[in-house]
Structures are given as structure tokens and as C-alpha cells.
């Protein structure tokens, strides 16, 4: 399974689309969005968390794109004809997602610290990165559900819609404060909004709120069930 993880991480990092869309884009957008117009400095931190989360969500969903691609190539079927068990393959994929979200998180946080002059205590940097990393798990599961449940083309489109929709709605790109009242109410239920809430709280030296943890747990269970159902429904045809 570790060999499989290594192979898949390598394949992901060689994907130009992943490196540009999942790592470079969030960094560029972060630098752009925080350096136009006036800013009191708090947005530099909040946007850093938001864009790191955006990159993490995109990278997590990309894991599902990889699954859909490998299904269409027949590679997952080929693996079924080797001694590897299906469990090893699925867990290896989930772990691949856990590893490949790290570059985006690290790159945006580095840009915040080195370019935008965000100053946090060492433990706050570590805690922010760790929380963003853990909070990416539901999105990896959502991606796996898409990858096992949908065709390669559909997965690409659905992943992109999920990524952009959840990012904008959750306030990862623009502050939720700019939203109309009703949209702010909707945003509070999105997993992305709660991820950024967690990160902003820790970066501001506060404990994560119970509400954020609760909402994310619900999404974790929902996306987890979705991934299991999608896998069960299609495992036979792989």
C-alpha cells in the first residue's frame, strides 16, 4: 500500500494541471486579492487561510479525478488482477489525497508569511496548517465519491463545480461580510466556510468553535457515506 501511495503521489505531482490549478493558482490569487485596494491587514490573514483552504479543497477533489481517470484507463481493473486487495487500493487513494493537499496549504501559508508579512506564533502556523489538513479529509471523500461514481469527464466537471461553488459560497475568495444576509446564512452551513472559520480562529489565537467542528463532522459523515455508496455501486464494474 505504501508503494501504491508513493506511486500515486508521484503521478499526481507530475500532473501539470494539478500543479498549476491546485498549487500555483491559490498562491497567485492570494497575492493578487490581498495586494489590490486598501487593506487593514486582517484580510491578509483571513485570505491566506481561505486560499490555503481553496487549494486544499481543489487538491483533495483532484484525488477523485485521478480515480476516475484510472478507471477509464483500465488501471484499477489491472490492479484487481494483481495480489493487491480493493481495500488497499481505496485506502491508498485516500492517503494520496491526504498527502497531495499539503503542497497547496504550505505554499499559500509560505506566501502569507514571506511575501505578505503575516506574523503568527510558531504554534499558530503549525496549528493552522494541521487544521486545514484535517479539514481537507471530507473533500477527499467527496472527490473519491465522484471518482468512483461518475465517468472521467463528468468527474472533472462535477469536481470543478464543487470546488468553485464551495469556495465562493464558503467565503474562501471574498469575505462573507460582503454577502447579502440570506447568502451569509447559507454560507454558514457550507464545509468550506467552516474550514476557513477554524483556520482564522487559530490564526487569531482563539480555540476552534464548536459550531465549526460540528458542521464539519456532519459533512465528513455525509461525504464519507457518499464515497462508500459510490464505491459499492461501481466496484463490480471496475
Amino acid at each position: 500500500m505504501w508503494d501504491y501511495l508513493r506511486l500515486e503521489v508521484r503521478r499526481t505531482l507530475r500532473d501539470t494541471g494539478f500543479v498549476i490549478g491546485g498549487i500555483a493558482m491559490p498562491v497567485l490569487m492570494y497575492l493578487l486579492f490581498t495586494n489590490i485596494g486598501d487593506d487593514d491587514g486582517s484580510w491578509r490573514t483571513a485570505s491566506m487561510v481561505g486560499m490555503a483552504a481553496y487549494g486544499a479543497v481543489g487538491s483533495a477533489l483532484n484525488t477523485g479525478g485521478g480515480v476516475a481517470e484510472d478507471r477509464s484507463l483500465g488501471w484499477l481493473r489491472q490492479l484487481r488482477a494483481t495480489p493487491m486487495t480493493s481495500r488497499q487500493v481505496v485506502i491508498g487513494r485516500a492517503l494520496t489525497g491526504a498527502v497531495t493537499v499539503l503542497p497547496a496549504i504550505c505554499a499559500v501559508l509560505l506566501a502569507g508569511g514571506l511575501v505578505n508579512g503575516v506574523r503568527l506564533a510558531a504554534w499558530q502556523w503549525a496549528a493552522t496548517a494541521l487544521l486545514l489538513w484535517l479539514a481537507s479529509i471530507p473533500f477527499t471523500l467527496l472527490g473519491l465519491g465522484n471518482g468512483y461514481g461518475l465517468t472521467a469527464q463528468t468527474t472533472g466537471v462535477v469536481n470543478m463545480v464543487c470546488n468553485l461553488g464551495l469556495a465562493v459560497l464558503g467565503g474562501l475568495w471574498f469575505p462573507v461580510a460582503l454577502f447579502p444576509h440570506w447568502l451569509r446564512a447559507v454560507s454558514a452551513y457550507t464545509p468550506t466556510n467552516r474550514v476557513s472559520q477554524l483556520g482564522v480562529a487559530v490564526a487569531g489565537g482563539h480555540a476552534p468553535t464548536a459550531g465549526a467542528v460540528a458542521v464539519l463532522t456532519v459533512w465528513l459523515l455525509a461525504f464519507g457515506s457518499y464515497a462508500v455508496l459510490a464505491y459499492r455501486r461501481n466496484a463490480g464494474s471496475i
Partner: protein
Amino acid sequence: MAADGVAGGGRAARAVSFTRAVKSYGAVRAVAGMNLEIGRGETVALLGRNGAGKSTAISLLLGLAEPDAGTVELFGGPPERAVRAGLVGAMLQEARAVTRVTVRELVAFVAGRYPDPLPLGEVLELAGIGELAGRRVDRLSGGQTQRVRFAVALAGNPSLLVLDEPTAALDVEARRAFWESMRAYARGGRTVLFSTHYLEEADVHADRIVVLDRGRIVADGTGERLRHSAGGALVAFDLAGRGTAGLELLPGVRSVEVRGDRARLRTDDSDATVIALAGLGAIRGLEVAPASLDDAFLALTTGPTAHATDPTAHATGPTAQTTDPTADPADPTAPATDPAAQAREGETV
């Protein structure tokens, strides 16, 4: 079913065993009651047209699909167990190039899944891709990709090598090299099962040919035996206006086919047939030739229902005119299949 391990109690067991296996996809019976035993060390060709059920049979064999009825066993146990134990290597037909890995990375990864793999260099050498080791798999040509897939199948040093249409994208040169490698691999006492729709390949490279048609085994034996079962020879002559009535009753004759003004008799005893024709004064432009494997294949796979159900039946155009005494459903496969399968075929038609 006995619970002994693959390596233990299954030692004397056959490499492959299908018992009345059935697999349908919707209304299509892709495998329709298949009985097949393959002993260890045999090299067997699964021969049939597109859609004859070859790939479905291979899916059942690898445990990628479950039979709707009957059983499929590898080395005396369920296919999954043999696959988990690393006894099986497969080259799947529909597989395409794996993206963003090098040949070396891919083959080494697969080899690493098996308990007793071949050395990497040996695998690459055997598959003829030694010089491609550092190249990315998704940047190779179709033929090169196919050889990589062969390497993936070999890498684990499996006792049973399963190849689904392994030469489809290869040119003549690569094809010859491929078969040499396959033979070299089989020489070590390993079992090889490959599917093909090339008669020549099956005849030259397999010890035994299993002919599939519409999900059933219609013949099983050496190329020689298949030729014989289809009628040992073809006797052709000009009709010169004479009718065809009674020709099928001549000694040795199994079927009569008319092309234009020329009759072609498939016969088990060409001497007797020719003497009888001479007796009728019918010898004009006489030609006697041994039946080819193509003839055998067409005779075996062109059942009376083929025209109604099988779109590929057009390939057999001329036989539409045949007055075929083998139209009796029990007969065309009689010399080559076992009687039990015959009986079941009667039930399932």
C-alpha cells in the same frame, strides 16, 4: 468446497476449471454454460470472433466478474484466492497506457505486489522494452504500450499467464518477438491462456485451441484435430448445369456449398467422394485440397442460428447458399466437444 490453501490441497488441481459457467449481461448470454479444464503447463488459445465471449470468459477466470451460475476455479480454489496469492498475471484487452509513470516505475510497482517476482531486468528484456525503461508509458506508441502491458502481466512471475488479445496492436516483427517471449515464458512449466481471433496464431503458438462461439465452446483440441473435425478435405468441381441434388449423399461428404457454377464438397474421405463423382460423370475442373483451419473455424462457428442473431455472420457470406447436413444442432460440434456439454447445449438453446 474444500478449504485447503491454494498451495496445499490445490497442488494437484487443474490450473483452470470452468464448470457449467454462465454469465449474462442483460439479455446477452456472454458465456452460456462453459465447461473447460486446463492443466498446468498447457498453452491454450481461446479462439473466437469478436463478441464470442472470450473477454467475458477471461473476466470470470480472473475473478473480475462472478458467474451467474456454475463455478470457475483456479488452482482448485476461487479465482480471487489465486489472484491474491500471486499465481496469476494478466494482460487485459481494454487497458490503456497508465499516465505519468515511467516504464520502470510501473513494472517495478506491479512486480512488488507479488511474493516471488522476476528480476526487473529480466522482465523488461523478455517483453523487449529494456531500452524504454526510463520513458513515460503514456508517451509510447501503441505497440510499445502493448509490450509494457505484457511486462506488467509477466512481472510477478505468475504460474498462470492470461493474455486477452495480446497481439492486437503489434506489427509483424513485434508479433514474432512477442510470441517468442511468450513461448520462453511458457517453457518454465507455466500455464498460458491467450485469446485471439487470428487462426494462425492459435494454430502455431498453442498446444490446444478452444473455439468459442456465442458463449459456448464449440471445439477443443489441436489445430490438426479441428481441421479434421471440419471435414478433412475440400473437393471442388464445375457443375456445368447439373443440379446439386444428391451430392450431400455421396460417400464422405459432410456439406455442399455452391459458388456460381462450382460445387465445393467438404468431405471426410476425398478418395471415396472423387470415385463417386467419377461414377456420376461429374468430374470437370476437379480440385482436391486439404481443409484449412479457416474452413474448420467457419464450419464450427456458423451454426444455423448465426444468421439470425449474430451481426458478424456476414463474414460467412458464401455459406448462406450452403445446403448443410450439419444443420442438425447436435451435429456440427460433435467430433470435438464432450458429450456432457452437448447434452447441456440441447437444453440451453
